[in-house]
């Protein structure tokens, strides 16, 4: 079994701190009262998904990118910024008395989140010209 690369672990941890402090700040800015739509978690998950689409498009169009860029931003920062555990726990809590809101919340997060990745990817591919493609078709 190959040992994990210590530099990758270090940048993932550092990125996770940055992203999680941002999510903590978002939670303070948009407090969530019980029985209401969890806007802060919804917005971090959707914006993080958009950023993930942009990141993947950037990596595809920048083959010379540093090898730690993806673990730092993708696993660390965006992994720390977005969360599945709070989505699950908030949905279960909303389900106790606010079933329709719970269903709306979880469905909206998944549908808008998936589409946000697609939108980020589309914006990214239009913003950054594909270097490999440009060489093949001058």
């Amino acid at each position: 079994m190959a040992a994990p690369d210590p530099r990758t672990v270090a940048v993932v941890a550092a990125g996770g701190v940055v992203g999680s402090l941002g999510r903590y700040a978002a939670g303070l800015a948009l407090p969530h009262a019980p029985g209401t739509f969890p806007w802060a978690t919804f917005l971090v998950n959707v914006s993080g998904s958009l950023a993930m689409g942009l990141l993947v498009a950037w990596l595809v169009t920048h083959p010379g990118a540093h090898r730690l860029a993806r673990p730092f931003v993708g696993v660390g920062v965006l992994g720390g910024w977005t969360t599945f555990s709070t989505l699950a726990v908030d949905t279960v809590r909303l389900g106790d008395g606010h079933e329709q809101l719970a269903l709306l919340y979880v469905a909206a997060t998944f549908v808008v989140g998936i589409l946000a990745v697609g939108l980020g990817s589309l914006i990214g591919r239009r913003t950054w010209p594909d270097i490999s493609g440009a060489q093949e078709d001058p």
Partner: protein
Amino acid sequence: MTTALLVALGAAVGAAGRHLTNHWLRERFGATPAGGTLAVNLLGSFVLGVLAGAAADGGWLALLGIGFCGAYTTFSTLALELWSAFEDGRRREVVANAALSLALGLPAAYLGIWLAS
């Protein structure tokens, strides 16, 4: 300020833990990236459920809930995996992955809350 430091500490361990869990599942069991994402999300949802059920607050919630569980689990990678499968026309995989994440993730959170309440 102290709360932010506890969030940061929990997040550093959680993010590294997610990477190491994925690494271990891949090396040891040949798990796919989607399988690794599912595993961390289920485990993190259970742990946050336990914290919620135990009515954890203050420093413990900051360290283990907002910091550790928040960084250990991810939505952005799950959304990317679902979008990639959708874009490639792997519709069954989209449905299976989303359904498993919810059909196991919500009960994992519920179980944690129930056990700790």
